[in-house]
């Protein structure tokens, strides 16, 4: 099971975080700091895997962003790499050649895509089409709901 997913920039700035196990803010911060440091210190040409405490960290760099998944000992690293790649593809399709700024400014959308793709650390939908359809459908609902006039809400 995926324990958590982190997205961070080459400068070590956290861009997204998704935790599938309950953690306090304090431990989240600590773990994030340690993992960002560990991943950033890796040299290019190194494998995408590192062992961290009793978890395995699988990471991959896309442009300026590191996508990083923590999985358990007996999870499949290659499958996790595919999961990461699948998510990048989803972002790409949704935003249209995604860049770091898309994720910064629309971070909640990036989270919504996560929620359609993974639930509780398990892949729930492997079809890209279905994921994007669900996300778009919900966007449509939001648009319908958005007040047309300023006074509507009151």
């Amino acid at each position, binding site marked *: 099971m995926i324990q958590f997913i982190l997205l961070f920039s080459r400068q070590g700035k956290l861009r997204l975080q998704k935790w599938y196990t*309950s953690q306090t803010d304090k431990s989240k911060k600590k773990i994030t700091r340690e993992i960002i440091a560990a991943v950033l210190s890796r040299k290019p*040409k190194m*494998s995408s895997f590192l062992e961290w405490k009793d978890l395995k960290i699988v990471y991959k760099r896309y442009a300026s962003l590191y996508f990083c998944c923590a999985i358990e000992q007996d999870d*499949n690293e290659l499958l996790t*790499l595919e999961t990461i790649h699948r998510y990048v593809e989803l972002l790409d399709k949704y935003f249209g050649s995604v860049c770091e700024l898309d994720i910064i*400014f629309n971070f909640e959308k990036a989270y919504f895509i996560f929620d359609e793709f993974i639930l509780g650390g398990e892949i729930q939908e492997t079809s890209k089409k279905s994921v994007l359809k669900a996300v778009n459908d919900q966007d449509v609902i939001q648009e319908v709901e958005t007040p047309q006039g300023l006074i509507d809400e009151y």
Partner: protein
Amino acid sequence: MAMSVTMDQVVKRAKDSFGQMFDKSLHDLVRGIRNHKDNEAKYINEAIDEIKQELKQDNIAVKANAVNKLTYLQMLGYDISWSAFNIIEVMSSNKFTFKRTGYLAASQCFHEGTDVLMLTTNMIRKDLNSSSMYEAATAMNGLSCFINGDLARDLANDIMILMSSTKPYIRKRAVLLLYKVFLNNPDALKPAFPRLKEKLEDPDPGVQAAAVNVICELARRNPKNYLPLAPIFFRLMTTSTNNWVLIKIIKLFGALTPLEPRLGKKLIEPLTNLIHSTSAMSLLYECINTVIAVLVSISSGLPNHNASIQLCVQKLRILIEDSDQNLKYLGLLAMSKILQTHPKSVQAHNDLIMHCLDDKDESIRLRALDLLSGMVSRKNLMDIVRKLMVHMDKSEGSHYRDELLSKIIEICSQNDYQHITNFEWYISILVELTRLEGTKHGNLIALQVLDVAVRVESIRPFACNQMAILLANAHVFIVGSNTTTVAEVLYAAAWICGEFCSYLKDPQETLQAILNTKVTLFPGHIQSVYYQNILKIVTHLIQSSNNDQAFTKQLISTTIEKMSTFLSSGDVEAQERASVSLHILKTVLKLLEKADFNINELSVLFEGSLNPVAPKAQRKVAVPNGLDLDAWINEPPSESEDESVVSETHYDSKGLFYGNSENSYSSNSYANEASSYQKPRNYVEPTADELEQQRESRKQSEQMNPFYLKDTKKSKATPKTETPTTTTNGNENLQSSLSKGAIPSNLQVSLSDQLYRQAKIDEENRRLKKKSKVDGASSKKGKKSSKKSDTVAADDNDDDIYPTIKVTRGGELPEGATASGNEDNDDDNNTKVGNKNKKYDPHRALNIDLNEVPKPIPSPAQPKQSPQKPVDVPSSPPPESHEKPKKSKKKATAEKEAKATNSKTKLKKPERSDYKELVSPVDDEETSAPPPPAPSTIPNEKPKKKKTKEKKSTSKTAAAEANQPAPLLFDIMSDEIPSSNQSTQQQNEQDLYKLAAQSDNLTVEYSIISKTSAAELDVTFLLKNRTTSIIDHISIHVVDSMSSKVLNTTSANRISFPNKSNQTENDTIEFKLNLPCSQYLRRKSLHSDVFVDLMNSGTLTSQSNVNISTDKQNFTSIINTICQSYRLTIVDNVNSAASLYAETILGHPVALLIKSTNSPSNISINGKSTETHFLSNLLEEIQTSFK
């Protein structure tokens, strides 16, 4: 006043209506943060203040916007937990847009400890059941992140219902969410499981995949409970084409196969097919891993076992050869799994793995190293280590080099140097390792050198002289930088040269070398060893000097002279040792002058040889009688004393602590202290003299330091004779590369390379010799063919061509102790258990037997009461059953006017556990030989009996029965025999009266019941009158045994009956009551997990075995017989093995493992307990009962 209020209201209104216009949007915030890179924190703090204002407004859109911004700030590391209530407000909005925002914020910042979560239950329930599937999904996504025990309990039912939703979109989420429910509320697993199982066959592949995912997660932790699902998964595996699902199923099988070898056999074929056919690397990797798991669990018996291994190894080779670093890494990882069981198959790929050592990625290099250490054999050890040595020098990074160094030592030393055929070579390798620049493993090398020298007697001369060379060049170690601990090796060198000084080629020169070293610059523990061993060498020199007085005197006086400088050592213990040695020498000198000296007086100091001590030897030393380790020797210090000690410590004992810790020799602390020795010790204020001395010594060390750039004279220790270097490429290469280290390679050591080459030549010679022998034997064959076959033969069993070198393995133990004791593992187990306890593992609670009939899910309305509801005690009142046999017998004998008396005796076991005495017949309940005084005065029928208690016994038994634990109907964890069974069994036991003694007039029968509550046995006697006459009275006299005594003190020893008769007849029956030790057992059921923990805990130190052959054919019936007759309970019963458990009445655990070996009629019983005597007697008893 009124005016301003209205104004405020107006402003507020305006703000509310145009809220979104005035507020910063998320975009503004993000942009603002990016524009304020210099004072980001200030900007954000202002933004948070604004957000707090926004949250105070009534407009939900404004609030949602604020919460959205907070979610972003949370990611940047700002605390937003204060807004939890506002988040809930936004979650509860009717609008999807806001609800989504709220749930996102909640999933990011709530955790199971968040206290507002208890307010959310009903809101989440409403959302889960929303008619909009996206709303329901939003709620489920959020819930999966912040679910806690209460939510899991209260919402389990709702989620279960969603599993049958018409929309697959909802169903699959519900299935995945259910896993989180289980983790937080293990009680939900059992009732939900059948529905989850159904979902494996859901028409929608997504739902199916979700169910596979959840069951895979569950089964990985507790595979045993999911074995019955294997057929369904097998079908899914052969039909599914979705790789994501296939991987999970194959992983699941990997967890199941160790429990069911037949499954493994079935799996091999489809898995190998997949390996051949798939192009997806992730699937291939998973298949290989599972095949390895199968092959590990069934080591033989597979038709194409070898072919499967070969296939795996081949495929892994392809992965390792791939240019993709990831595949390379994983290939090595999987290879190491094969290595554990099939080292030969991996050894064939030696070249490939050596090649990986040159990889750029350190993690790949480390993996390769791991593999190498498992691959060594006597044949290739020297080659591998040689390559590693060359490699070490080329490699970068001191961390990796240190890793290599410790690996080399690990490889060589494993299994007590099993693979080493040439210890000279090994010692020279170790010496070369000391030249590694900046290593942190100085003490590791030192310990190795010591260990080899101590354990391998034949190497001592060589080791001794190598160490002498190190000592002669000790100055090079002084200059090492702060980061290295390589000087530690001098500790070993000094000790070896001292202890085995008789092997030194020139002890005098070594002594000079030691004395001329600036020993005081070393850390304290090394100094101490130096001083001690100086004395040893001096003793040896005197001894071998043949009473040459002049020589001796001269030797001692020079030594004294040199040693006096050592008195200035800054280390407390070193100083003390130097002083003691010095004074011994002075005394010797004095005696010499008086011509009163006998060398034996000196040599007696170092008599006897020091042998390795087993690691756990200390623990095995028996505590002498009368020594209480827990008792205070002196009165414990009072509080006030403690305080005074503390204040003293405050100012002056810092230095003391330094000294103390540095003097301890335990290898652990010495690793720590080693790093500190280089630091200046400023706690001793140096006097002017000392400063002068130090300056002097610094000058000297500068002179000795070959790297110190100074234009004065050359360093003192000029190379004596350059090692004769052979001109082979490899050797030069190695030597020159090594010499780049901190230490010049002008030491006169025989390079490992020379030895390596020599060893290879020797090996070849031996092989040739052997071959020629075989050649001679098979002389008639054609030359060519015989050569061929012989080489093969020689390769096949090389082992005999290597010399056998005696290595002292293990270590000394105190007399009578054995090394095989269980407690050797104590520490490991304890720590393991400790870790487990530390980290709560929800999967432990999910270990639930799912094959039992499910119970309805506890309804959320009264969640807590239900588990306790149906507790009734089904035990039938025992009094009747107890009395029944008696009554019937009474009837039968009524006409004969017999008086049957039921008497009850309680035997109290005193608080000692010496069961042996209990069982030996002499000590059993025994009647005294001389008839008691009573019979003479009462001329009547007089059977011997225990103290009576009339029918009171019945009520007692009833009470005992009530003490039994009520059946735990809701304890889903237990698969024990329901206790109602136990009570019937117990009643059956009560029915069994055994004959104790018989005379013409009377039979005495008895039955024994152990009490669950105390260390007591109830013995009930049944007396039957065999005559027609009436018994007048009965006197009872009991003699207590050594270990048991009669407890009953209330009723008289004499029972009189109202019926008087004229006849007078006297009868005495004497009997011994045998209390077999099984009677001291009581039933105790134990969950198998607890049982396993107990077995692993190492507390059951006594072991005993018996073998029984019986004519019974059915293993189960044998087990049942044993259980019934010895009050054991079955903990686990698998095929032809069962584990049984009981406790003695004193609460000592007794565990038996019964296995049928070969035929069912032949069974072996293996017992473990804390009570040795008891256990062996019990097993003996069981054994006899089967004969």
